[in-house]
């Protein structure tokens, strides 16, 4: 195992991107993760900066142009370490990798897409897969939103009324239909099950027949994000030709089909680039000796197996992803190395009085502080280990809901970590 250049822990967006980029740079990479990462719970679009100031309700047009103002108000945000260039390169890297997996991501860092949410709000995102991007409300025109009785997570009438009330230049109408064919006779179907059903050509034909009488006068047809899982590009293209209209998707509640597609694309790209992957493997601990990570403990059926590599990237996430843990006494800790965690000292300071706090919940900003090379630091700012890097949600200083920077942080810090590892 000593031939491993880098072990990446965690299969979320930041971990998968770091591993992909290192593998593409001909490193011997091993990605170890307990399970699939948080992309499967997210929309599938990449948020870089959606709102500035963060309590504004007006979606930003150009995220990078607002970056300086944002950083002036959020001086500890990880964007400070990574920089605008890393954001650009991170987005470009994601576009390159996903395009090669037939899941092209559309957009760029200087123009947000304004995607409709399932509620009918506007979700500003720098990049989105084509199926989501085609819903951009600024394209205007008349759109028909289609829901299904059997899918309890998508209510197109509510989305349409909210969209119309905001006078965004788009006119939305809705129709909710029973599925043209039952899915395994089930009353409670998940988006994933429905996505698999959409992969059947016969199902799409029947749906198109039922839908055709409703389509007149609409330029775009929106569906919940269930248009195929493994064969999504073909499903989307086929549906567009069947209906003779532009077709788009809207992400609703988890599990997220676009998130699942992204996870699978990045996983497959990693394997194609020669990376290795252990999913379902928990790293339960690690040793730092003389300023270096010397080993990691991989839990197996009988005893922990020791892994080692020249570099280790911690992409295990924050309190949400599971890379940080907390208890009733108000402690927050990083369970693998016991890294120092910056968090509000007392539990009563963890939360805002508002559930939907514009600046995010204070506890959501808990994380590990790092130096310019993304290495965790001690109280004096010295790196705790020369070969350990932290990327993504585990970083201190930001709550992704404040301004909506989650995707951008994962991508930009992946770039910064790769730079630090390769340019050593």
């Amino acid at each position, binding site marked *: 195992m000593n031939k491993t250049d880098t072990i990446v822990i965690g299969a979320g967006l930041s971990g998968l991107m770091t591993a992909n980029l290192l593998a593409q740079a001909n490193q011997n990479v091993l990605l170890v993760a307990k399970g699939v990462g948080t992309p499967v719970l997210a929309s599938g679009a990449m948020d870089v900066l959606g709102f500035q100031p963060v309590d504004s309700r007006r979606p930003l047009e150009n995220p990078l142009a607002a970056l300086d103002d944002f950083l002036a108000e959020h001086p500890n945000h990880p964007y400070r370490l990574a920089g605008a260039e890393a954001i650009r390169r991170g987005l470009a890297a994601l576009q390159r990798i996903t395009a090669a997996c037939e899941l092209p991501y559309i957009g760029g860092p200087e123009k947000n897409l304004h995607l409709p949410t399932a509620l009918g709000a506007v979700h500003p995102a720098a990049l989105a897969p084509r199926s989501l991007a085609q819903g951009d409300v600024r394209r205007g025109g008349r759109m028909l939103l289609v829901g299904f009785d059997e899918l309890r997570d998508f209510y197109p009438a509510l989305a349409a*009324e909210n969209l119309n009330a905001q006078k965004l230049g788009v006119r939305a109408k809705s129709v909710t239909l029973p599925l043209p064919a039952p899915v395994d006779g089930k009353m409670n179907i998940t988006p994933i099950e429905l996505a698999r059903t959409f992969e059947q050509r016969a199902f799409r034909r029947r749906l198109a027949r039922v839908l055709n009488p409703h389509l007149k006068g609409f330029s775009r047809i929106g569906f919940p994000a269930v248009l195929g899982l493994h064969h999504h590009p073909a499903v989307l293209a086929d549906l567009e030709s069947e209906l003779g209209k532009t077709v788009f998707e809207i992400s609703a509640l988890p599990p997220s089909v676009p998130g699942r597609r992204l996870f699978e694309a990045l996983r497959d790209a990693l394997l194609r680039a020669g990376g290795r992957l252990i999913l379902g493997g928990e790293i339960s601990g690690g040793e730092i000796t003389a300023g270096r990570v010397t080993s990691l403990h991989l839990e197996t059926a009988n005893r922990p197996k020791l892994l080692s590599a020249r570099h280790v990237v911690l992409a295990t996430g924050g309190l949400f992803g599971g890379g940080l843990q907390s208890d009733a006494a108000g402690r927050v800790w990083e369970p693998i190395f016991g890294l120092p965690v910056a968090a509000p000292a007392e539990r*009563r300071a963890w939360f805002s009085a508002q559930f939907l706090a514009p600046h995010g919940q204070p506890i959501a900003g808990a994380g590990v502080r790092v130096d310019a090379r993304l290495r965790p630091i001690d109280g004096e700012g010295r790196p705790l280990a020369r070969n350990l890097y932290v990327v993504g949600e585990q970083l201190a200083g930001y709550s992704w809901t404040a301004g909506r920077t989650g995707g951008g942080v994962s991508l930009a810090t992946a770039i910064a970590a790769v730079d630090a590892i390769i340019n050593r």
Partner: protein
Amino acid sequence: MNRLSTEILVIGGGVTGCGLLFDLAQRGFKPMLVERGAPANATSGRFHGLLHSGARYAAKDAATARECIAENMILRKIMPHCIEDTGGLFIATPLDPSDYADQFYAACQTAGIPVAEISPAEALRREPLLTPDIVRAFTVPDGSVEAWEACRTLLESARAYGAQTMLYHEVTGLRLEKGRVAGAAARNRITGAAVTIEADMVVNAAGAWSGKIAAWAGCDVTVYAGKGTMVAMNYRIVNTVINRCAPPADGDILVPVGTVAVIGTTSVRVANPDDYPIEPWEIERMLVRGAEVIPSFKKFRALRAWAGVRPLYQEKQAGPDLRKVTRNHALLDHAALDGVENFVTITGGKWTTYRLMAEQTADIVCRKLNTHRPGQTARTALVPEKKRKYHTLGARQEKVETGQASGQLVCECELVTRSQIEARLAENRRSIINDLRRDLRLGMGPCQGGFCTWRAAGILHQSPTFSAAQANKSLVDFLQERWKGMTPVLWGAHLRQMLLDQGIYAGLLGLDKLPPELSGADSPRLAEIETEGYFLVKNEE
């Protein structure tokens, strides 16, 4: 100004007021109930849901124990659909005083409570998660009661006899005429409109607020607000009510309620019954006490904490220990006490004895009005015969499986189906999500509304009365209300759950980014006040 008149005005829509309204209506009066929120909005809906067998009080207060067991048996007959027959266990651990158990057993027998000792092994067989260190165990007929359903049933039954209900109306003063109470002034909390209600008799059943009401008539009623904090755990840890076989103390009762288990309570005197924040030590105390009975208690997730204020009546100055203040009820005829005619206060007491309190109050009302009309509520079943069976946890699942309910689950934690929600909306086209919670337990399970709140908002919006803005507002309010109860217990896995919910409502749905005029996020919370909820609309129609 809107003027109304009634024979008897009942102030307070807790279970006592609801029970009294029904009792008076059944005796042929034309009573009216005025309540500032929804029924069982305060203390009557903010307890752990325990139907007392009386055993909790047997050793200390035989009279209360006797009342409890008698009422327990009556409620099982008249409102079985609101009761889950869980049974109760009293267990003594090595931490409990060793001489209490014998004293307890003898006291239960004296009070007429069916008590039986079982072996610790048998107790563990019934409830395997209990501590193996049990020293002694006793069975008693405790139960779990569905408070909102009970109050709803009482009000519906009262209306069937011609009673009127004024919900979401806050009493702002009493009308006094020549030393007698002649009615009350109230304000409609939805429209702000003032209302005057003339009445021949006014009954103050305002619980922890009854001192405030009495003061308007110049009567001194000392009622302490005794805060009790409860914590709901994410799992039905036990199927039986578990009590500590020890003198009453904090966190000595664990009640299975639906899919969760509720531990309670603390007992803290508070100055203001409208403002009683939950303190961190209260949560910690509940978890420590829970772990004394269930060793794995802290491995479960605390879902939510809430508190209610008991009305504790005290004739004389109370000492600091509220558990020594009487939990008996007090029925005060202010003519005799204060020289104020046509005014009666009923306060104190327990949920379990609401019917008895109502009956005794109605008896006094009859005496004061010089009429003889005996109460019949102990013999009157509140549901038709075919529905006369205990509520069970599996009932909803059974309905889904036998095709009596549409199987589409909107709330997966509490097994609330879409057809149930649609039926409620058909009955009352203005139910908001918080009404659905009270009616159906929507959003009360382990995920605390993460998924079902969104679905409920979507379904609400499909009913023609709801605009998108109203559905959004109902969603915003409900999430905020749940948030208040979650923050005291957010850490570990439950904190992750909350962060997922934030991801859903902010990240995926963008609820925080809708314009405020569309989401109502900046306007006052509708829930509990301007909801035009179920009962109000029924009343209007």
